[in-house]
């Protein structure tokens, strides 16, 4: 099997299965969570603020008062990583083509030098966050195998993408295939690991904002 064949498989059947498992997994998990339901709150809310869940979805992306100073590594590392990751996923021209082929949506991309910088930033941030996880007693206690698997599964697409672009370690076609395989691994793992926060955090933040707002507090 030549490297191009491997790439074709990665872009073909492997991707199809990964995407299907991803979509099915997301559907399953959303049902699993939302299907448990919640009781209607019979307490009269202090204020009627219908947008409060949405507000918290947005505002919870900012650190709460005084928190940045308490754990700057987690916050700054987290921001750099997520920003780098999202910029890379959504603003690298070839990636946009991928999304266009699935969603028919198009948006402008960024020059590769910027993408390159954001990948490096995200990889460095991941490294720092792993070191922090291993050194911080709280994080170390909370972490299990799942956390490290999720870390690796997140790193691999960034790393293989970087290596492919720069023609490092192996020739481009093989690395591009490995890049796709690593993404497929991530897609399959995402619904069933803590990476599902990608989706569930919106639900969680919404509940949080809704509850607090009914008591008159913007959370």
């Amino acid at each position, binding site marked *: 099997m030549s490297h191009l064949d491997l790439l074709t498989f990665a872009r073909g059947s492997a991707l199809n299965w990964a995407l299907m498992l991803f979509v099915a997994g997301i559907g399953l998990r959303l049902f699993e969570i*939302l299907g*448990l339901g919640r009781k209607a709150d019979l307490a009269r809310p202090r204020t009627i603020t219908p947008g409060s869940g949405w507000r918290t979805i947005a505002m919870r992306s900012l650190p709460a008062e005084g928190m940045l100073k308490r754990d700057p590594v*987690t916050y700054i590392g987290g921001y750099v990583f997520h920003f780098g990751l999202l910029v890379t996923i959504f603003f690298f021209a070839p990636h946009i083509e991928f999304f266009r082929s699935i969603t028919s949506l198009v948006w402008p991309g960024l020059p590769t030098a910027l993408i390159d910088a954001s990948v490096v930033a995200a990889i460095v941030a991941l490294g720092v966050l792993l070191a922090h996880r291993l050194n911080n007693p709280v994080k170390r206690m909370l972490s299990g195998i799942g956390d490290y698997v999720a870390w690796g599964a997140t790193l691999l697409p960034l790393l293989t993408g970087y290596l492919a672009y720069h023609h490092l370690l192996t020739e481009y076609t093989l690395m591009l295939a490995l890049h796709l395989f690593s993404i497929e691994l991530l897609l399959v793992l995402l619904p069933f690991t803590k990476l599902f*926060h990608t989706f569930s955090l919106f639900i*969680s933040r919404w509940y949080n904002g809704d509850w607090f707002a009914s008591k008159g507090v913007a959370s």
Partner: protein
Amino acid sequence: MSATLAKGISAFKEVIDAPIASFFSSCVHCGLCAEACLFYTETSEAKYTPIHKLEPLRRIWKQEYTLLGMLGKMLGLSKPVTDAELAEWEPLVYDSCTLCGRCSMVCPVGNDITYMIRKMREGMAASGHAPEDMIAATTRAINIGSPMGVKWPAVQAQIRHVQADTGIDVPVEREGADYLVVMSSMEIINFPEYLSALSRIFKQAGVSWTLAQDAFEATNSGIQIGASDLAREIVSRIVVAAERLKVKCVISPECGHAFTALRWEGPNLMGRPYGFEVKHILEVLDELQKAGKLKTSGKDKRPLTYHDPCQIARRGGVVEQPRRLLSEIAADFREMSDAGVMNWCCGGGGGVSAITRAEPLRLQAFKIKKRQIEATGVQTLITACANCRIVLEEGIEHNHMKVEVIGLTELLAQYLVEESTP
């Protein structure tokens, strides 16, 4: 009848709902909740990380309510929740959580960890892993009517004192009054100034109010220990009295969890919305002041600050009211760091102050409050929760600080313009 592990696990299964499933699914183990929790920040012990306190509940969720967890359980790969584990978790779920809700404000993925601790306590209580002191307090609340064992005659004695001191007639069992006043046993025993202050304020404002003989106790040990059936029984006393006396509004006293019990949990425990309103005393005072019915003269010259009780501010939404009230009577009001919805807990909420063995931990956690108070440089600390007040006083005494703690209602009454009684 007794508590068993099976009952506890069944209770865990019963309380898990969509929000809890979403919260556990979202947690990325970032550990930021620890940084928001005074039991962690003041001890640096990782086990006090809020989300860690929920580990047994998380595993029940995973094993019972997720496909992967069910498969794991079938293959014998998952660790079952045991009595030994719940016993180990008891101090984490009770002694080191005041249900203050600070972690819920901080969690980047939006997990309301406090909500989950409250729910988890249902299973802890049902499996017999609630602290003895809290069981005793709850038993007194159910059997005697008050967690501190206070009975109506004690309230009557208070009423007589108030009437003797102020010459004001304290209304009892007055049907059709606008407001039903309830109190915490702490106020009845330790802070009699509250009832006196309230009588004077209401007299001046011309408020029609009443006490109820069978519903004077506002606190609710049931929600603290996590036994909804008992919490319902306790809260229903007030609901029944309020309905019997046809009041428009029940005034929750200067007590944090009583407000949560009555205002937010009550209707859900009863399974029906109330036909009356529930307001915290500070809300009522603020309304009276806005309506011009609360006249004060002079201002307190002492530098003072205000401690936001968690259940009143962060989990109650009463933040602006105390500040508006204080601005009328305090010449040198100084805001504490992190004031308002991000305030640090006194360390004794959520039933923690009732647990004797938790005292050393509570005093250690008090260090944050100590720093906050010291930073303001005041010697007068105002608050609006009798439990906070007791815990603050204990902490202040333990640390040999020269700070006086006063209830806001009481302070307000000191500056009341009293017209001569007709």
